[in-house]
């Protein structure tokens, strides 16, 4: 196993604790629209959170 795979696993650990389907989104818009529809959170808020957290 390569170090990068270990890194991914480590970072995916918190996600993998949830039951459900691991879903892939191809771009930011797909992701934020999906989260907004699922949780009811405003896209503007999600966008700001995304921008604040992304390195």
């Amino acid at each position, binding site marked *: 196993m390569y170090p990068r795979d270990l890194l*991914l696993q480590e970072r995916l650990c918190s996600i993998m604790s949830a039951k*459900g*389907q691991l*879903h892939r989104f*191809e771009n930011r*818009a797909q992701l934020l629209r999906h989260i907004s529809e699922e949780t009811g959170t405003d896209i503007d808020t999600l966008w700001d959170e995304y921008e604040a957290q992304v390195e």
Partner: protein
Amino acid sequence: MGDDTDLDVSFAIDSETASLSPIGEYQVLDLEGPVVIVGDASYRVVPVGEKADLSEDVRELSVDEIRAALNELSDNDNFQSIVDNCPTNTPLVYDDIDYLTRHLPTKSLQKCQELSESILFDKELLLQVAYVERQNSLVGHSDNVLEYYLEQRAEIVEKLRSTDEIDSEVERSFFSYLLLASALIEELTTETVLNELFREEARLDSITEHVRSMGHAKRLEKLCDVQILTGGDHGSLVEVKERRNNLVHDAQKRAGLDELESRREVARILEKTDQCASVLLTISGKNIESVIAKRGCDPYIEHAQSEAVADTITIWEQEYPERLSRLHDCERAALEEIRWDTEESDPKNNITGGFTFDGFDDEELYEILREFVGDASKAFLDRIDADANESNLDRFDFALMVLLCAGHSYGDIARWLDTDEKYVQRKENVIAWRASKFEKDLVEDIPRPEDPAWPSETESGD
């Protein structure tokens, strides 16, 4: 031998649009729950059905504890064997764990249970770690080879163009190119054989081993037997294999590039080899977005364009609010209804809906509109990519279904998807059995095999 003609080389694989997802940097965000960003793509757990209950929370573990457990797993043969038996995809309606426990052989599940007793992870988390590892290693591998292939292809073309004769640099570069092309072709061939012949069982390690032990020639033969590969393409792929073997095993031939005497001859071989790799990229389902975009059925194109426009509005609201306002404020524009002719190569100049062009010309507004449609057309390909991944059919079958639903002839579909007409006919039967609600919602009417399809009299009996 010198060659003073202009060197024109055109390739089947478009490096601009080839779907590359090499392993990149990862980031984890908290957006109403954890999200992992990998390049442009992202991963998130989506609840299945009505229930969205959480299992025990691994976040209670410390980072050091998680790291120690992962380190232990990385050197563990039993864990690797679980990974090797994991699928790379699960059906939409199943919870991953529910599906995995039914899919994996009893031995793998027993190993998982035993392992969970010796490390901090419970058996369910262990299984999900293995599943992600399987997805990650498979998705990353062939796309990385494709990336190296495209780089090497660019290098050999540049070398060919910058010299008048075939010198040792061209020979070395060509040899590297051929090795990478062969690696890419062999990897995609293996993947296609597994997808095509074994389906579910392809996700079992023993079956994968069986396919790997067949040898490349045998695998190509299998694909030809089931007619996903045409006889002509099979012949060309065998030629690539023979050329590669000649150069690898015979130093003299390698030095003279096996009697390729002019730059033009080398260029033609590059084009033929690239065409072979392109065929495999298509039939393995890796490069099907542009065909669906151009030839897909109307309900699907409408769905994908509508989603792409909504995605683009989401982005523009944040990044270009002023330009978006210009479009919103224009009475001639109905932004959500913007559509374009997907059969044309330049969507920006082929807008078919959502804007009334009658009336005064406003070049500044038109330019904003063209930029919007340009972005939407990229989001359109992303949406097709996402739908193909999400479908319960595999990506190539998904492409076939969307084209069959458009009412195209078997022959045209076979030509666009680099496969045999007979294969398209057979897939029509398969899709009738296997299409799920997800696909039915996207295309409305699933094709229905009706008339008998006998071989034409001109076709030979073999």
